[in-house]
């Protein structure tokens, strides 16, 4: 029969074990935990605004393949359309149009210091260049190979039918 003291020791050992087991089975904390919580909460705002334009409306504004470069459709979702640029069968860049409605994506253009095709432009990270058209549609070119330079990105941005996109209502 256990004395009171042993019972207390036993209880604290048991409690520690329970805590240890629970800690071991819980996933490690992630820097995305906060976003996970916010985007799965009841009544969380959808990732894509209801008013966002369908991706299919954007297809006609993308550049066609050029000599040596193939342009291949990749994704077409609400508020988003994307094409791949392939050279000799290798993916060298991505072209994308997205509707910034309901997102914070347009705000970075307030600090824009240059234009492309007449529209405010920004460099993003090491691999992306983007313009904002009609204060709403973001057109972005992303390098996927080191051979596809910042200059290449700027050139391809100007190949989009940006004026046509601006007229899209």
């Amino acid at each position, binding site marked *: 029969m256990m004395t009171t003291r042993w019972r207390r020791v036993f209880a604290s050992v048991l409690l520690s074990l329970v805590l240890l087991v629970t800690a071991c089975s819980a*996933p490690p904390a*992630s*820097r*995305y935990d906060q*976003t*996970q919580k916010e*985007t*799965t909460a009841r009544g*969380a705002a*959808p*990732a*894509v605004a209801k008013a966002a334009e369908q*991706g299919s409306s954007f297809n006609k504004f993308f550049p066609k393949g050029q000599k040596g470069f193939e342009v*291949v*459709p*990749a*994704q*077409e*979702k*609400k*508020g*988003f359309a*994307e094409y*791949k640029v*392939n050279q000799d069968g290798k*993916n060298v860049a*991505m072209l*994308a149009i*997205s509707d910034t409605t309901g*997102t914070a*994506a347009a705000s970075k253009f307030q600090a824009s210091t240059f234009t492309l095709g007449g529209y405010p432009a920004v460099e*993003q*990270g*090491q*691999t*992306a260049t983007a313009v904002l058209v009609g204060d709403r549609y*973001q057109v*972005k070119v*992303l*390098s*996927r190979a080191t051979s596809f330079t910042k200059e290449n990105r700027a050139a391809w941005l100007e190949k989009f039918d940006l004026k046509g996109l601006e007229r899209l209502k």
Partner: protein
Amino acid sequence: MSKPIFELVDSLPTGGITVMALKSLDFTLPGKWQNLVGFDNTIRAVTGETDDDLTKQIGDRAVALFNDKSQGYQRALWLYQTVSSASGALGTAALANKIGQDISFLGILKNLTPKPEKAQSIDLCVKLVAEIVAFCQINGIPGDSVGDFLAALKDYGGESLVRMAALVCFDGLIPLGPDFARKGLDSLKTTSASDLEKNQTFKGIQELIPGDSPQGKLGFITESFESTRGWMDGFVSANSLTPEKVVDNLGKFVDISKDKLDYLGAFLDMYVKYYEHTGIQTLARRLIERAVAEI
């Protein structure tokens, strides 16, 4: 609600039987298969960006997109997971979760029953359809556009291509032999809607297969298989694939017994979760590609 996407990608194994089986298919791919695991790792690999703040921003957007059910990503994940687990439900093997343990082929042999050829054939066809439907959910092409899928198949790379290679090798060549494509098609033509409804893999995903009735769904499956057959045959001849060649290569990575080939199909079904593993990788990649473009 599924596990968070970053958790799924962070938990992908770097070793074990699924990874080894997929590595054994390297010889069919241009360049080696890269087993990309870890959410932040995948962000860096896909985008080429390494800045912590920027990668966090990209990851946040990817997480938000995945959690928005209307965007279809969770449905795609469910498809990959359901196909992986349904095909493993052989019914006769009552085995505890063996992940991480040494799975010796001969050790569990007595617990496996080879699936009849017809069931294997239907499995192959249903898995192919799952691939098409998941593709459409992820990339947004209209749900029954087999033609668009075929066009995109030519551009398949990385983990998507290795998944198709595994489909051909593990679900086609090994259980059904070199004639797997014809057997698959012949099987479908002699399958009734009620036969189809009894198939475990089909039962698991039928609500997402285009078609108003089991008959209609059977029609879609048949059409998809017929259309993709050309690609599969081409893949086999381009790599001079035979069941023996696949088994030989598999044997370099996984401890198997080559004279128990008829059990090998069941073994692969049970333990090689290639659909789920590479499906999660494909999903993560697409999400991240979209996220980095949208931020």
